[in-house]
């Protein structure tokens, strides 16, 4: 890492606020009543959620015949939405775990909200496999590996759908644990500032008696690093396993070995777009633009461009392999995908995901919040269509022309999708009210990073920790960041 007062590196926290100022800035939204803007936004998203609940209720009552699926197209909006939402979640884990292991200190301002986003996205995702069973009270039980009512018959561990059940439930559990462990010190900060006795009681219980003792920090940081180390392969495995739902089948268009890396790159791509959408609003509404700076946004834009080109490469590789394989069915599926009756969805996907992120090559574009906001929406639309293209265009014209069909989703499917957006945004809005949306302790620990003044007295020291005069213990990773 470079010298602390670098001319090349920008400070991660602007204005070099005092420690107490950081606490105040982050906790202010939690300690004041919600603004009118908050209520207005919440009213909108909660009504989306209500509409979605009505749709789900109707679909449960009437059956999944209310969807536009048919004999040929057995998966439509349900699994498209599932894969879309799981992908959204991946950026949260990438930011909290992978960037942690790579010592990317800029992650500290955004990891908390990105992890929250992961949890809400995985909840939205898990809804779809559940409701697409039609009778989830049976279906959910069949996944649990226990002898069941059909005699001592167990789940089939050779099936990718079972792998998926284990992957998603592990992913949710570990993300929740990682998130909560990260929250404990900040919850203690909230507890110590709380005035109202009920508020104090709630945050006392949640913070588990955390005191900030250094004997605790030593173990705490090790566990935090271990959880990051566990989450990193986990997040790669989750979308890999989701992709095997398709890749282990023999459907042309699904049966490809490129799926695991292609899905993981796409997940990170879409997830970062969603993080940007949320944070651009949050930093404005919560007045934390000096904590989530343009530099953070710029870094995320660069990741979007990089992963966007990875998925672009995957799209083209798929086409090449379809031709190179010499398989008529593969070849037909891909030509049909781009130029068949559903070709419009392919080109929406391609232009949103591959062409439009190229705008971030220009520094003016990736430092302009309006451009970034529009692009984050565009990328999310593109990535939703990617899953739609993979699922629906591969199914709608299969081996037997007499069974070819078209898919037209019904109002139930549209409103269920709307409902998950309602759930996601409502949960996020509530989160910004009741929990510290930025990791206070972590931001304090990087406050001095590349701050010109803070290091003049001991300029030769390690930039990262802000601890002059003491070398890092060789075994200690850069903890707490």
């Amino acid at each position, binding site marked *: 890492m470079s010298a602390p007062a670098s001319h090349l590196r920008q400070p991660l926290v602007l204005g070099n606020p005092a*420690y*107490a100022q950081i*606490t105040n800035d982050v906790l202010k939204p939690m300690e004041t009543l919600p603004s009118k803007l908050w209520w207005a936004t919440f009213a909108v998203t909660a009504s989306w959620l209500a509409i979605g609940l009505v749709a789900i209720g109707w679909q449960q009552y009437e059956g999944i015949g209310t969807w536009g699926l048919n004999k040929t197209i057995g998966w439509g909006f349900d699994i498209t939405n599932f894969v879309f939402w799981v992908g959204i979640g991946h950026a949260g884990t990438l930011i909290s775990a992978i960037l942690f292991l790579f010592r990317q200190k800029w992650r500290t301002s955004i990891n908390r909200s990105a992890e929250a986003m992961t949890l809400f996205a995985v909840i939205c995702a898990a809804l779809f496999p559940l409701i697409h069973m039609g009778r989830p009270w049976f279906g959910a039980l069949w996944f649990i*590996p226990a002898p069941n009512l059909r005699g001592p*018959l*167990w*789940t089939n561990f*050779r099936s*990718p759908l079972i792998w998926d059940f*284990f992957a998603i439930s*592990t992913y949710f*559990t*570990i993300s929740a*644990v*990682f998130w909560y*462990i990260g929250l404990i*010190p900040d919850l*203690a*900060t909230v507890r*110590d500032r709380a005035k109202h006795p009920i508020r104090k009681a709630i945050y*006392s*219980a949640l913070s*588990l*008696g955390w*005191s*900030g*003792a*250094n*004997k605790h920090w*030593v*173990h*705490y*940081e*090790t*566990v935090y690093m*271990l*959880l990051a180390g*566990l*989450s990193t*392969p*986990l997040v790669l*495995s989750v979308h890999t396993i989701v992709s*095997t739902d398709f890749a282990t089948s023999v459907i042309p268009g699904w049966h490809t070995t490129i799926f695991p890396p292609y899905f993981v790159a796409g997940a990170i791509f879409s997830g970062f777009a969603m993080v940007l959408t949320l944070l651009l609003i949050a930093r404005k509404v919560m007045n934390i633009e000096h904590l989530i700076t343009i530099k953070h946004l710029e870094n995320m834009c660069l990741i979007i461009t990089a992963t966007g080109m990875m998925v672009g490469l995957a799209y083209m590789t798929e086409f090449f392999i379809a031709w190179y394989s010499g398989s008529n069915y593969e070849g037909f599926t891909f030509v049909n995908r781009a130029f068949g009756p559903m070709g419009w969805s392919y080109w929406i996907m391609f232009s949103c995901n591959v062409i439009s992120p190229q705008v971030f090559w220009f520094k003016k574009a990736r430092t302009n919040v309006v451009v970034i906001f529009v692009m984050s929406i565009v990328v999310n639309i593109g990535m939703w269509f990617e899953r739609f293209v993979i699922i629906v265009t591969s199914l709608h014209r299969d081996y037997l022309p007499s069974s070819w069909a078209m898919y037209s989703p019904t109002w139930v499917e549209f409103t269920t999708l709307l409902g998950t957006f309602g759930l996601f945004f409502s949960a996020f809005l509530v989160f910004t009210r009741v929990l510290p949306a930025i990791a*206070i*302790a972590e931001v*304090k*620990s990087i406050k001095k990073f590349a701050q010109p003044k803070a290091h003049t007295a001991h300029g030769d020291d*390690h930039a*990262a*920790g*802000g*601890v*002059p*005069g*003491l070398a*890092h*213990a060789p075994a*200690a990773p850069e*903890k*707490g960041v």
Partner: protein
Amino acid sequence: MSSHADAPAAPDKYLVGYFVEDDEIVAATKASRQAGLPIYDCYTPFPVHGLEAAQGLPRSWMTYACFLLALTGFLSSMFLQSYTQAIETPMWSGWPLNVGGKPFWPLTAFVPVLFELAVLFAGVGTALTLLAFLRLYPGQKPKFTLPGTTDDRFAIVLDTGASGFDENKAREVFGRHGASEISWVAPNR
């Protein structure tokens, strides 16, 4: 956490030095330790790098716990899958099911669930080990009430009952390293 039952003569008070910068507390901790002052613990709003070395704390053993838990998860998963998919004995059987003539014990097909359960056990288990070892649970209270140590102050707490404690020396060391406040604190219970 060490017990203080073996220090009967000491008053039930601890001497605390408060600092406002992270580098001050590291230097003060180092100096206190060199001066032979018994440090009970340091309290900081965020993990201060180098403080564990200054305080002389050993490396955390949580990594070993994590490895053992991952191994437990891996073996449990191996047992679960092997037993349910492939084991058939007269007394004690799973339910081997022929799916399209595929092998009953295909190790590669078990890899995803082997991995997931290893991670699940390791992650949840390590977090619970941490909370149990540090005795953190709902209803637990911090040992001391040290104002500002979860916000913007850094505190060194000296164990007045332990040997080597010398109030004058402590005040001198704290003062030399820029302590903003030196005061006494009683434990919360």
